[in-house]
């Protein structure tokens, strides 16, 4: 079911029906509930011996400072990478980035491509693009491998297959690869290890994401547990790293605190098994590693977001997933219901800016504004206020006003605007206000019992017999001797 829910480029995302079916799926809700509860606990434990607020201040300051110098840092990164022998490419959008990758694959006469986990390549739908052109593309992160086998998309940015339980995975691997159908995570992991080892050796190109790109040394940092990222960037003769332009930081000194925040916020680990820092292709005296390393810098809407001082904070994100782990909405509906690359609070803030508000009309409102996401975000992105900002953008009256958010004003309705105009008018004139409220309370018997979705789960509000004003007036009259 979820696999068909990817958005198409020209129609609004079917958010509401997807939410309904997700809510009706008790298996799915159980899977997410268990996982998210565990992750919240692990995160708390992991920060127990830290001054977390000071560390979050530092994380925020580093990301903001990096963004402030973004164009300069990108140029420095490019210079440094080139000096190290890494070839740098730029792409304005997803299609252009896919094209860059395809051209490299063509030049290398590649047939098979192996991938480490990368959300930006999900964003640009790279797998589909390469497959259409005849390349065999294989995901090597275990979660991504499972999701790819099921022809689905990731339901969480850190744990792509979190929506599936062991029984479902055992059945899937049995059907797709012929291994025994054993509900045993150890057995299944070992089978995947063997299947993929062969593929690593055969692959012509390895494609990975980047967690942090370091400008002053031209270093690409990749954070992972499985070792698949290291294999992807070491065994094939060519490595293509793809990253959003916002991932650059000045130096490795800045990576250290961000890394402390990232792994603890994401999975409650004090560090991942591997932090892989790649600075150049294989040198003449070296015996392994790719002979060619490419870096693809993808904009895809980021430079537009960058123009708006407030919304630019979206770009501080280090993709830890903590906001989704702590989101009561995400926990109940899971990642697929959003139907976009990035789900959860960061998805609700980022996707409308990338796809446009017309296509994501309910994203900003699908939040109780409980504030958890903002409280846990390691780089202090004010997610709740950004959601409010997008709500305002969606009903913005002046469609001609320059806004970095595509589709601003698309949710404005004449009826709603009229109601607010009347509301404003009535509240500005005390006489009119008293008249209206008195009239309304006298006509209270006529107030509707059914109010669409609202009364499905709640009783309809009813006006009081007397207005507060007259009640207070009567009381003060009674109290006077």
């Amino acid at each position, binding site marked *: 079911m979820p696999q068909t829910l990817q958005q198409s480029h020209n129609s609004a995302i079917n958010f509401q029906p997807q939410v309904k079916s997700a809510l009706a799926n008790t298996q799915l809700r159980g899977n997410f509930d268990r996982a998210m509860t565990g992750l919240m606990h692990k995160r708390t434990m992991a920060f127990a011996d830290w001054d977390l607020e000071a560390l979050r201040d*530092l994380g925020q300051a580093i990301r903001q400072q990096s963004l402030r110098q973004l164009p300069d840092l990108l140029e420095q990164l490019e210079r440094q990478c080139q000096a190290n022998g890494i070839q740098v490419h730029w792409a304005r959008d997803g299609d252009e980035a896919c094209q860059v990758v395809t051209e490299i694959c063509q030049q290398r006469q590649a047939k098979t491509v192996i991938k480490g986990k990368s959300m930006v390549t999900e964003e640009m739908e790279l797998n589909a693009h390469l497959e259409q052109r005849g390349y065999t593309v294989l995901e090597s992160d275990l979660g991504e491998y499972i999701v790819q086998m099921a022809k689905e998309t990731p339901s969480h940015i850190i744990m792509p297959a979190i929506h599936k339980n062991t029984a479902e995975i055992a059945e899937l691997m049995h059907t797709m690869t012929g291994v025994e159908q054993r509900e045993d995570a150890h057995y299944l992991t070992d089978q995947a290890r063997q299947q993929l080892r062969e593929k690593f050796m055969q692959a012509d190109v390895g494609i990975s994401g980047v967690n942090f790109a370091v400008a002053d040394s031209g270093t690409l940092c990749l954070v992972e547990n499985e070792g698949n990222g290291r294999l992807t960037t070491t065994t094939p003769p060519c490595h293509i790293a793809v990253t959003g332009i916002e991932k650059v930081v000045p130096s490795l000194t800045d990576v*250290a605190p961000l890394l402390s925040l990232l792994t603890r916020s994401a999975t409650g680990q004090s560090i991942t098994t591997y932090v892989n820092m790649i600075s150049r292709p294989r040198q003449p005296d070296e015996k392994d590693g790719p002979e060619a390393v490419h870096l693809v810098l993808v*904009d895809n809407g980021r430079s537009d977001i960058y123009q708006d001082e407030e919304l630019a904070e979206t770009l501080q994100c280090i993709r830890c997933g903590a906001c989704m782990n702590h989101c009561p909405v995400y926990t109940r509906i899971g990642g697929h219901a959003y139907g976009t690359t990035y789900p959860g609070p960061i998805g609700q803030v980022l996707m409308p800016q990338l796809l446009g508000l017309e296509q994501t009309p309910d994203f900003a409102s699908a939040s109780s504004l409980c504030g958890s996401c903002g409280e846990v975000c390691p780089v202090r992105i004010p997610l709740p206020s950004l959601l409010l900002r997008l709500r305002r953008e969606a009903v913005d009256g002046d469609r001609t006003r320059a806004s970095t958010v595509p589709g601003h004003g698309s949710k404005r309705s004449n009826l709603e605007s009229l109601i607010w105009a009347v509301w404003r008018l009535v509240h500005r004139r005390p006489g009119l206000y008293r008249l209206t409220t008195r009239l309304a309370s006298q006509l209270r018997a006529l107030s509707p019992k059914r109010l669409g979705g609202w009364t499905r789960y709640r009783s309809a509000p009813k006006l009081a017999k007397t207005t507060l004003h007259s009640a207070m007036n009567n009381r003060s009259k009674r109290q006077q001797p």
Partner: protein
Amino acid sequence: MTSSARQTILSRLRERTSQPASQPPDFRVMNTRRWSLEDGIERFIAQQASVHGDVQRVHEPDLATAVLSRLHQAGAHRVLIAPSQGLRDALVTRAQNIDFQGYDQKVEAWQSELFHQTDAAITSCHAGLADTGSLVVIPSPEEPRLMTLAPPLHIAILPVSRLFSSWYQLITEEDWTGPMPTNTLLISGPSKTADIEQTLVYGAHGPKALTVFLVDGI
């Protein structure tokens, strides 16, 4: 295409006129992560243990014996070790049934053997980090990258004198700004995954076991 893309992106970014106010980064919190040598050793061992890494503290004269017994315990027959590794001669003279070899040819020439028939690799470390129980490994022509990745058992030799409190301390003391080696790694425990219903499984795509010999006296 990509040169005009470069132009477009950079000039669009430079169109932003207002620069939001932000605090300069205050790194003091990173310096609160400091341990004395003995506390650091204790923390290093505990942190490694928490991710299934095994740490054995030995004195230099006992190192070869300890490493050998670990290799025997793992049933290793074919072991990679750099020719320049000081330990090598002691191991070779004492070992029976173990073939020690260097990673002395390009990977293309023996990839399948490396992946399927090598039981263990012994490598040096640049440093150890107490805070997270990590090894800092810098692959070299003698100790290439796949040495710490392909064989199922990784044995790392870490002199106590190379133990730092944290990565941040190491970076700042050694001044890791500017050009870096081809590849630098932080390794914490054997490879693992929790992608199947959050069940933690060791031995995902890299080593299934990691033993660190923390050596006094070198």
